[in-house]
């Protein structure tokens, strides 16, 4: 019983859903609890449990960019200058845990997640923001978008993709944010 709110702490669980839990069918969090707050918490744990790597290390508040860190990854061939002004806000928020990967530090075609993180100083598993940011914005050319994600290069991190880059070699493209499960 939630005494702060004066109501049930958890909404009643339907017997059918309870049975599915017992049988190990791992029902979606949306089917377990109609309370949005509880559902959001359940979804967080479900994702963390399912992915095994979808979280920051113990003690890091993922809602605080200064603690969790924020970074942007450009392909090595894309000029970062057009986005520099837009990135300043995140730089202020993340402070010393802000990271830009571009040019020689940028993403190289065909590179996998583990290899990329290794030479960036990061590692797989729970993210240590002191080594590499928890939140990442991936910048790609639209025509490369699917190939980037089909290699699962960054899929275990909280990532977003910004696909509107003007360069001398490519025509302007529409902007789109890809937000798998969290704010980039």
């Amino acid at each position, binding site marked *: *019983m*939630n*005494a*702060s*709110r*004066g*109501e049930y*702490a958890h909404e*009643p669980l339907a017997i059918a859903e309870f049975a599915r839990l017992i049988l190990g069918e791992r029902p979606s969090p949306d089917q377990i609890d109609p309370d949005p707050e509880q559902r959001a918490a359940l979804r967080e744990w479900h994702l963390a449990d399912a992915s095994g790597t979808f979280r920051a290390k113990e003690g890091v508040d993922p809602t605080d960019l200064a603690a969790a860190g924020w970074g942007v990854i450009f392909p090595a061939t894309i000029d970062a200058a057009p986005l520099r002004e837009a990135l300043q806000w995140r730089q202020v928020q993340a402070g010393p845990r802000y990271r830009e990967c571009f040019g020689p530090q940028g993403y190289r075609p065909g590179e996998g997640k583990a290899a990329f993180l290794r030479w960036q100083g990061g590692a797989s598993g729970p993210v240590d923001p002191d080594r590499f940011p928890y939140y990442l914005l991936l910048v790609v050319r639209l025509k490369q978008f699917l190939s980037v994600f089909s290699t699962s290069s960054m899929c275990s991190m909280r990532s977003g993709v910004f696909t509107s880059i003007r360069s001398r070699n490519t025509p302007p493209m529409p902007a789109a944010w890809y937000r798998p499960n969290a704010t980039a």
Partner: protein
Amino acid sequence: MVFAGVQYPDDMATSRSLHGLVQPLVAELANHPPCGDWLFELIAGAEATKDRLLHLLYAEPPTLLFTASYGVEFEAVDPRQLPHQGAILCADWPGP
């Protein structure tokens, strides 16, 4: 041994815990041949008040006190969380 089962009117969860757990458990134990000289007391429904349970805990503690009730939780920002988190919700709770 004392078994206390709280039950609120029109509340399915406490009704089931009392009638489906506490009462059958007491009946099973009391009628179990090896129970020896153990005495079993059932405190059911409206009798499971805060005063009654406090008396059992501090004045006349039984060898075993088994309770079935709601537990109380508080929001993280609620100052009552530290002293009262996990408290037993007794039968004389006036409701929200």
